[in-house]
């Protein structure tokens, strides 16, 4: 397997949607390719960081204000 072929399957590997056979081919490639190993690990970390950090917080006072505005209009039939 080449690095390009590995990259084409990177998402499927990360999302755990590869067959056992493909997985074993990917793992075999990883054992001999430090670059693809770094790419895999840092891509996984990228996703994890975006998942676990709130970058657009909704402060509670703003949340309550928007919530009140939405519900007031819904009660009036919008």
């Amino acid at each position, binding site marked *: 397997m080449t690095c390009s072929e590995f990259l084409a399957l990177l998402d499927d590997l990360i999302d755990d949607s590869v067959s056992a056979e493909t997985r074993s081919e990917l793992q075999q490639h990883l054992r001999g390719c430090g670059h693809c190993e770094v790419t895999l690990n840092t891509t996984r970390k990228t996703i994890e960081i975006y998942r676990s950090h709130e970058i657009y917080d909704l402060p509670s006072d703003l*949340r309550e204000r*928007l919530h009140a505005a939405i519900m007031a209009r819904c009660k009036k039939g919008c």
Partner: protein
Amino acid sequence: MATIQPIAGELEPHPDVALVERVRAGDVSAYDTLVRKYDRQVFRIAQHITQNREDAEDVMQDAFLKAYQKIDQFQGNSKFYTWLVRIAVNESLMRLRKRRTGKMVSIDEDIETDEGNVPRDLADWAPDPEQNYGQAELAEILRKTIQGLPQGFRIVFVLRDVEGLSTEETAETLGLSIPAVKSRLLRARLQLRERLSRYFRKKKRTRPAKLGETRNDK
């Protein structure tokens, strides 16, 4: 009015199904529960698309009002959340269009780029690289980095990886084919990885990169 029936053989119906039924029967408090359940997600998605806080506030209100008005059109063959996200994405794009005085805005714009398809920065990252930054600085890095992605990649990444929609739900929400979602997701992930490497790669010296050192990709 047809009631929403869970598909035979499926597990327990999603709790939103009962809430939607109550809203349809005129119970506004059930809608209150739905708004509280999903307001943060809708606000986040709107911010990612409009990249403007005031617009995101307007989008959040408009999306929830529109969903309330159209609740009878919700078929129940998708999740309420996915249906709501579709409304929020459309409202966000409309808001962008308004701000750009009618200029066409679509999720396809700016995607003609080859950047990041082949990893160039192959340096490994420090272990727990986010520990090198304070919370506010890290949030700023993450915001700047994702804002630099082409819109069509950014939306796919946000829906799929941040908000947890499946590939199929993302495709349905954005009106894209499944191969198109997969291709955009791969490119979005690789581009973000490449850009974050500037901050998170192992350093020869201990000083982490500062925000001002980022180069402008546009």
